[in-house]
């Protein structure tokens, strides 16, 4: 049996597209994506709450789909496309959701908001109007410890309804 030292690397060279920019770095094998974004790239909009996949504060998009930044290694996203709250906000794609969150006071302390917005973005992007129950279920993996869920659901519902209206022929 060969020692594992010869089989794998403690540090890995990765190349990943982050918010449209190609980033090449050496990362520690154990560093998860959320720490990589925050500590190496200073993209601190991605928050870390529980760090074991329960709270959803670290939600990012990998190849366009939501993922837990704490349950993904930086090494795993080599060759992939990652978008964070910073990238989505700057691109303007989150504007309507952000506006509605502000209007309805759906961001209280703001800690969960980046994860909430990205998850809501994925839901709204489906293009059909979800029921309130569906919205709650879709957001069930994102915790708000201010317990401001009602306003968050209101905001997502309003945006989803407008977009579904707009797309109707």
């Amino acid at each position: 049996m060969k020692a594992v030292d010869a089989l794998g690397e403690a540090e890995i060279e990765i190349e990943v597209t982050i918010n449209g920019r190609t980033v090449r770095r050496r990362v520690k094998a154990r560093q998860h994506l959320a720490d990589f974004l925050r500590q190496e790239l200073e993209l601190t909009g991605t928050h870390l709450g529980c760090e074991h996949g329960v709270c959803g504060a670290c939600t990012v998009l990998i190849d366009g789909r939501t993922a837990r930044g704490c349950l993904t290694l930086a090494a795993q996203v080599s060759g992939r496309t990652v978008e964070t709250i910073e990238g989505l906000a700057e691109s303007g794609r989150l504007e309507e959701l952000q506006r509605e969150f502000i209007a309805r006071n759906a961001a209280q302390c703001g800690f969960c908001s980046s994860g909430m917005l990205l998850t809501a973005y994925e839901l709204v992007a489906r293009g059909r109007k979800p029921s309130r129950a569906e919205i709650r279920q879709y957001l069930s993996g994102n915790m708000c410890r201010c317990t401001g869920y009602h306003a968050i659901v209101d905001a997502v519902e309003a945006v989803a309804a407008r977009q579904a209206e707009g797309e109707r022929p």
Partner: protein
Amino acid sequence: MKARNFRYVRPASLQQAYRILEEGGGDAVPLAGGQSLLAGLNMRLSAPKLLVDIGELRELGGQSHAGGVVRLGALTRHRELLESELTRTRLPLLARAAEHIGHAAIRNRGTLGGSLAYADPAAELPACCVALGATLVLGSNAGERRVRAEDFFKGLFETDLKPGELILAVEFPERAAEETIGFGELARRHGDFALVGLAAVATLVRDRIERARLVYFGCVERAALARAVSAAVAGSSLPLTDQAALAAAIRTDLSPNDTPGLRADTKLHLATVLTRRVVNAFAARAAA
């Protein structure tokens, strides 16, 4: 918390993955979607020395349907179970179950093979595979072998996988037209670990159950056929009337432990409620 230090390797082929896993022995652990494994590492429940990232291996992907068998590659994501036309029409039990697996972000990453290999007794997919009579295709340097799901789950987080062996795919026999499925789970929050869950397959003739395969999760040590309950409901007409026989059968099959916040007798009560709910819903489906 943060995971302990480990090394990482992303093999370019299945053969290379086999070789690394064999040479690494017990120190090497395969990483697919990582949605259970990495949570466990962050909480320092385990500390493998080497993670072998099999998440990009083409050989473990794909879905097909031929000769009365639906074959799902080990890297099939939970989201695909929920959305793919093949699983929605041919394996509706998996599509129903997938709604309850974690949350959207977890379902985007987590894989079928990963869930089966991890063998969490609260997981939905091991129970579904046993209920559906699935067969797991395992591979290693020594070649391929097939193991029935019923024989695969050995105990708490324990499976029939040998060191250096990977799940390649899962094969499901095509279901007969008269077969119906049932699924339910009770959790504190949608997507959380099930306190009590049930996956079921039954053959109905009008409102009478001919045969049934019921498998519990969440309140058991491993995914296994609930023989007494399956036998007790077979031959019954719906809705179920003999509550005492059902409760007795549940007590034969299940012997849950007290856990913080939930006593064993509460779990048995919940299992009885859930079983009635799932089995009686067969009737509605049969009528539809």
